[in-house]
């Protein structure tokens, strides 16, 4: 079924001023009215999503009621830290630095992950760097099976297919990073009587690109309904610094640089946005293919990947399941 034969990025164009007003009204009503909190706290990654959220919260509540956290660890990039600081400064909010390396060390985040990598690449040792990577959906019909890439101090790289046991160990160990950051956000939220802001965009929220009880946890998620390209439109309208708007989205979870499409999504965000929009609105793969300069088969594979991720991550969105409704359990 073709609903929009003229598929183009214009389908995702929004009135940034109007959307900003809607979201700031939502933040104010939720924080002041429904939650009765004194302000909000959010982690600043130096990416466009958290920077836009900081700017929206500052507009909604006043910058003095917004606290930004910079939470570096020994493997996060210096650029993340500097851009996070810039994000806070541009929104005019107070920022606090919480280095989470010690917590991660104590929890065994690095050692557990490294042990899993060594089960695949025995040479992997101190001084090496690593990341995990998926094959491109666009380039082949290959299943999206993770490969671990480890780089020795001399730059030589080793690659290995990730076994199920190593995959689960690596992911659960690195998830300490997102969960520790969220724990720190709730510490400051409790201390200040603030609410916690979650900063996923629609792509991340829909496709389950978050850690349960990590970055997936929050009291309100003001931009979860916006496609990533729409977040960029808001960023421009809100005056987010160009260096932040120009930075390619990154996971900044592993010690080697890694893009989001290398780790999770099938395509760069702007193309992924249009595919997700098309999937949500019943637009034919052929029409999307023409708009993106890809072929129909490639778009069909992206559509299958979207559906597959929705199935695989559905449980992440579920509330804790109860046998029966409980009075006082909230809505």
């Amino acid at each position, binding site marked *: 079924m073709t609903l929009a034969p003229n598929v183009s990025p214009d389908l995702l164009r929004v009135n940034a001023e109007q959307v900003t007003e809607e979201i700031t009204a939502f933040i104010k009503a939720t924080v002041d009215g429904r939650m009765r909190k004194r302000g909000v706290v959010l982690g600043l990654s130096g990416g466009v999503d958290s920077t836009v959220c900081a700017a929206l919260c500052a507009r909604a509540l006043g910058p003095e009621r917004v606290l930004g956290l910079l939470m570096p660890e020994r493997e996060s990039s210096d650029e993340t830290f500097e851009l996070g600081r810039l994000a806070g400064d541009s929104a005019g909010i107070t920022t606090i630095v919480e280095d989470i390396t010690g917590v991660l060390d104590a929890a065994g985040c690095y050692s557990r992950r490294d042990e899993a990598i060594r089960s695949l690449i025995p040479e992997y040792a101190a001084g090496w760097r690593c990341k995990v990577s998926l094959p491109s959906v666009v380039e*082949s019909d*290959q*299943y999206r*099976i993770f490969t671990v890439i480890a780089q020795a101090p001399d730059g030589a790289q080793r690659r290995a*297919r990730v076994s*199920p046991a190593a995959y689960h160990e690596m992911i659960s160990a690195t998830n300490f990073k997102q969960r520790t950051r969220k724990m720190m956000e709730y510490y400051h939220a409790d201390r200040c009587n603030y609410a916690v802001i979650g900063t996923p965009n629609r792509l991340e929220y829909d496709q389950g690109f978050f850690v349960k009880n990590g970055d997936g946890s929050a009291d309100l998620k003001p931009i979860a309904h916006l496609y990533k390209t729409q977040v960029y439109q808001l960023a421009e309208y809100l005056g987010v610094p160009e260096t932040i708007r120009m930075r390619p989205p990154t996971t900044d979870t592993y010690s080697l640089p890694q893009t989001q499409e290398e780790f999770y999504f099938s395509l760069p965000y702007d193309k992924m946005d249009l595919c997700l929009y098309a999937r949500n609105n019943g637009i034919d793969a052929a029409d999307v293919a023409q708009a993106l300069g890809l072929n129909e088969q490639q778009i069909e594979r992206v559509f299958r990947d979207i559906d597959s991720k929705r199935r*695989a991550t559905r449980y992440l969105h579920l509330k804790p399941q109860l046998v029966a409704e409980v009075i006082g359990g909230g809505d």
Partner: protein
Amino acid sequence: MTTVEQEVRTFLAENFSLGKDISHLSSSQSLTERGFIDSVGIVEVLTFLETRYEIQISDDETVPENIDTIDNIVRFIGVKRGAPEAATQ
């Protein structure tokens, strides 16, 4: 039913049935499209096939036409072991 098919069915039942009765799973039915196996599960299948049949499966062979159905797996194993007739018995 070939020995390979029987062994693959047993492996799937023991590792992925999750309460489902897979005896009615058609040999031509996709293992991935209905969420029966995800991408991590595919690696478990690959590991099983490599170990049980003493073969090496390269990354570019990890495509649906080789792995997505029981029929495809049987045919693929036959080819890898140099006995494609195994898939048609």
